[in-house]
């Protein structure tokens, strides 16, 4: 340990050599994609639980035991979340083109749409009429939508950061990775919701 | 950096290695077949599984010997000797031919083994020709005891904690759990299956040897997992049928005497035996509880009765047996002691046990 320390004193550098880029892919982009693979697998495990209850055991799905899922409200909510992906895309394109107003307005709209989604989702929980401990179907419903809601929350946090930085003017057409990378995560959250909505509410 | 120009590998080395390896393999396989690996063969299933094991030994030993022989010969032939500190081996990168060989041969061996194992699997699970005559036993796992349910001649259920099996007849176990996952295993029969809450699992055996064999819980099921051990008794079919008939009779005439403890007492009840071994239906108290008078050792699962019952009256002890949750000894978790002693012990036996415990723990 001491040897390492002594060496550190002697080998004084101003900084490390610049790393070679052995791939065209941006490290941040690749990291986010790998993280999303991990996230997909978490959802995969929850879908496994769903699969076992509904397919392997062949238990009845909603409407079940007098409990129903509000397909219509959730459908409207889906539309809200999907439109947030469009506004995000607008913001990202604006960032690339140097359109400051488009970036700011796009980010703000996206954030508000996402927030509305989460708000409606929580409202749905309050009015849905059954609890996770009523039956396994309830556990799966709350488990999957709750897991997704948590991801919306993480996504909103990222969007909030991007929005604040957008308003402070930290992004330029050359430097907009800070918009792109969290944006990918938000798109993932949206796509995941389509899968959740289809399997839980529709099928 | 000099490159190795030694020509130490000769045909002779290879021949030596093949000879040593072959000899070691033969000796190893013979030894492996000679060793008595398993408990006694208690069922037809055991015979088949043991055969598969022998086949595994016949393939496994040579593979292991091959690896060890090559390592040892490499060490013997090619280890660095003084003066060779700067020597390198030859720059060999591989050999497609060899790689094909050592991909193909293991693959072939693997498929032989898989094929044989699949055949054995279907054999040991096959239903007997006369399926109607198969004995069906329901097995219930509960922390920390097994109970068994037979169907009497009159179609009424017979519950017992002793597992009796007829020799030479196929038996199908339907395994259930009342709480967590257990695993119903009779090592001498080689078969096991988990007892899963909410699922009925099953396997079948055909016992081939009269005798008594341990029944073991093989899946960690909590505090008393280690002592969840009972016995299976395999008996000649005639004797088994007589037992079943006697059980049906006693089940048909339930304890009509009610609480009359002295009335029906067939003989003096041996309370100590019930404590240490159970009455044939109940679990033995001594498998969890320490009691100096009975000589049962400390297992740590249930409280030490010499301590917790010291100075307690008969009523307290009786409640503790029949309704174990009524009062839990300090430092011990609830829901561990089976709640069914009120059913598995006859009232007279409970009274005898209470008297015995009062006497044994009196200071």
């Amino acid at each position, binding site marked *: 340990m001491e040897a390492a320390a002594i060496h550190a004193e002697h080998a004084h550098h101003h900084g490390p050599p610049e790393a070679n880029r052995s791939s065209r892919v941006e490290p941040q982009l690749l990291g986010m994609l790998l993280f999303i693979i991990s996230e997909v697998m978490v959802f995969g495990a929850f879908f496994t639980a769903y699969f076992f209850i509904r397919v392997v055991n062949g238990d009845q799905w909603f409407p079940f035991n007098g409990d129903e899922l509000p397909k219509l409200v959730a459908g409207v909510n889906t539309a809200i979340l999907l439109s947030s992906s469009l506004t995000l895309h607008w913001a990202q394109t604006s960032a690339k083109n140097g359109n400051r107003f488009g970036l700011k307005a796009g980010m703000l709209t996206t954030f508000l749409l996402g927030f509305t989604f989460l708000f409606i989702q929580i409202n749905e929980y309050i009015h849905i009429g059954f609890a996770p401990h009523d039956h396994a179907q309830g556990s799966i419903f709350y488990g999957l939508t709750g897991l997704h809601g948590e991801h919306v929350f993480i996504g909103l946090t990222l969007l909030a950061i991007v929005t604040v930085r957008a308003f402070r003017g930290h992004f330029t057409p050359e430097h907009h990775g800070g918009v792109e990378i969290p944006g990918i995560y938000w798109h993932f959250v949206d796509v995941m919701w389509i899968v959740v909505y289809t399997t839980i509410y529709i099928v | 950096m000099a490159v190795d120009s030694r020509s130490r590998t000769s045909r002779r080395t290879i021949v030596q290695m093949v000879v040593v390896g072959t000899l070691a393999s033969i000796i190893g396989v013979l030894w492996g077949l000679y060793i008595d690996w398993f408990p006694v063969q208690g069922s037809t299933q055991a015979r088949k599984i043991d055969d598969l094991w022998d086949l595994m030994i016949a393939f496994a030993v040579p593979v292991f010997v091959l690896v060890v022989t090559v*390592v040892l010969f490499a060490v013997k032939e090619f280890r660095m000797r003084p003066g060779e500190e700067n020597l390198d081996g030859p720059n060999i990168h591989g050999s497609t031919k060899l790689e094909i060989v050592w991909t193909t041969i293991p693959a072939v061996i693997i498929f032989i083994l898989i094929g044989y194992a699949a055949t054995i699997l279907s054999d040991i699970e096959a239903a007997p020709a006369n399926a109607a005559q198969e004995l069906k036993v329901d097995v219930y796992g509960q922390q920390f005891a097994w109970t068994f349910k037979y169907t009497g001649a009159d179609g009424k259920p017979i519950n017992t904690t002793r597992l009796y099996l007829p020799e030479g007849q196929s038996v199908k176990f339907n395994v259930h759990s009342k709480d967590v996952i257990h695993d119903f295993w009779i090592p001498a029969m080689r078969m096991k299956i988990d007892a899963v809450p909410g699922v009925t699992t099953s396997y079948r055996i055909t016992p081939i040897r009269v005798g008594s064999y341990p029944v073991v819980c093989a899946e960690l099921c909590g505090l008393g997992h280690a002592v969840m051990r009972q016995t299976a008794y395999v008996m000649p079919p005639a004797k088994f049928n007589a037992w079943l008939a006697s059980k049906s009779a006693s089940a048909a005439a339930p304890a009509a005497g009610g609480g009359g403890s002295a009335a029906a007492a067939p003989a003096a009840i041996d309370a100590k035996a019930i404590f240490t071994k159970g009455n044939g239906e109940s679990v033995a108290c001594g498998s969890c509880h320490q009691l100096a008078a009975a000589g049962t050792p400390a297992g740590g699962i249930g409280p030490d009765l010499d301590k917790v019952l010291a100075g307690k009256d008969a009523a307290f002890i009786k409640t503790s047996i029949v309704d174990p949750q009524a009062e839990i000894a300090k430092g011990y978790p609830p829901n561990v002691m089976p709640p069914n002693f009120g059913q598995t012990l006859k009232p007279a036996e409970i009274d005898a046990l209470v008297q015995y415990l009062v006497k044994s723990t009196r200071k």
Partner: protein
Amino acid sequence: MPAAVRHAGWTRATTFTVLGIAFSYALSLGARAGLGYDPVLDGEAVLQISLVTVPFFFLVGLGLFDYWGYYMSGRPTRPEDHSGHGAKSWKSYLYPNTDHKVIGIQYTVLSFFFLFVGGLFAMLIRAELAQPGRQFIDANTYNGVFSVHASILIFLFIIPVFAGLANFVLPLMIGAPDMAFPRLNALSFWLLPIAGVMMLGSFFAPGGSFASGWTAYAPLSDSAPIGQVFFTIGVQFAGASSIATALNFLVTIITMRAPGMSFFRMPLLVWANFSTSLLVVIATPFVAASQFFVLLDRALGFNFFDHGQGGDVLMYQHVFWFYSHPAVYIMMLPGFGIISEVLAVKSRKPIFGYRMMAFSLLAIVALGFTVWAHHMFVSGMQNWIRVPMMITTAIIAVPTGIKIFSWLATLWRGVLRLDTPMLFALGFLTMFTLGGISGVMLAMIPITIHVSDTYFIVAHIHYVLFGGSLFTIFAGVYYWFPKMTGRMYDERLGKLHFWLTFIFFNATFAPMHLIGLDGMPRRVADYADKYAGWNLAISLASFGLGLSTLIFAYNIIASWRGGPRAVGNPWRGLTLEWQVSSPPPVFNFDAIPTVVGGPYEYGVPGAVHGVFADQPPPVVAAGAPAAKTPTDE
């Protein structure tokens, strides 16, 4: 506010930890009062909330999130000044650091601490099992001890120690100045002590430690005392650490290789960690989810595993093993990488069949996802799943066999240096073969029906994880010790360590095959009298095995403090990490080297793997392949 509290460090971490506990109390009280629960103060609720939130308070206090907090608050980006790079004294290792070499040593040292803790638990287990009946600990403590033994050694020793060794050498090997995400790397490390503290701290929980095994099967884990959540939540932190590191390795390997280092010029250790990281990123979320289910069942009354409410008990095992079978390869593949490095250098020969070695790693990764249900042959799952799983399981023996035979061929005609790393590598070859053979036996369903949940399984897992993984870890630690510390270890003590370990390892675990086949179940505090003889012998041997580890500890500590100084390349290795000083410079390289050939060109005079700007161009011998002009992949 005093400066010590304002600046990142241990004072602030302690303050924040206290704040976190206060926050958990407040949250629990507020929520329970708001929802009208009685009593308002519930110890278990506070404990569960604390286990989730307090670690984050601690990490924020320690300064792991300072940079990100700065960014998140919307302040302008600041360029990295590299002031946090490198260790200035031994104290630097007690603080977050972004240097991969510091993190590598932090990881390795901490994991070895847990090896010794886990080993002590093993000694306790063997002391209890030395005779039938109760010796030292009651059944509840016993169940807790073996559960913590397994959890600690899997989640806090084997998995992270490989990450530690790779953290140190992998960036050097591929010619990178650091990992791709140094701050994430630091965070990954600091998640580990949290998981460790939780698992050890579980012994202080009311009702004792978690006692349902490292597999934590539901519904036993659903109804176990509160100690169980220490595992449930601890695993989340260990798992998050693993995923973050794997992601970091993958990005580093893909985007930061030196010019000229194509995928097929990477040392096999890099290949091994690439494969492992793929497994971690894809599989680890499943163990996280399985524990989420248990936590939701316990804390919020969900019914994932309550069959009375329609839950499915077997689903736990499917989800758990979908991670935990690949986890076996997560604990093995990096060891394969270490062995490839050691055998090539110590035999002075190129790895035989390099490409097949790389492809067989990928084959194991792919097959590793298709075999999980072989842990469930007697679980009562659908019968038809068994035979397909038997086939895929047995087929894994083929790529594994390719590796074993290629290593043997690498030895052949080499010039074998039989020093400590090499002895452990050879010990690994033979012992892992035994573990692999019993693995093939276990793939055969009829045999598994008899031996599952017996000591045969205990023997198999220890031949694979001790004779397999731990031997490779010892080989790797001895092999890179000079590089990591700048000192040489004591060769005589190293060899003594190997021989004692090798002998006592076999004396301990080989007889377990016998008692397992003979009918002794695993995870029991007590056993039938007929197994008493073997158990006593096993216990005695295991104490010898425990003592042999002390020699290792002494050798490492004494050599680190006062061993002879190591030169940059004591083994005359060709891979890049040996071309820099020992220990390496703070920023690894003055300039990134250019890779001009394969990593194992032994036997070609003057062959080099990479060239440095300040060195003369290499002499390329006739017949040396692949010394082309550097090209980008």
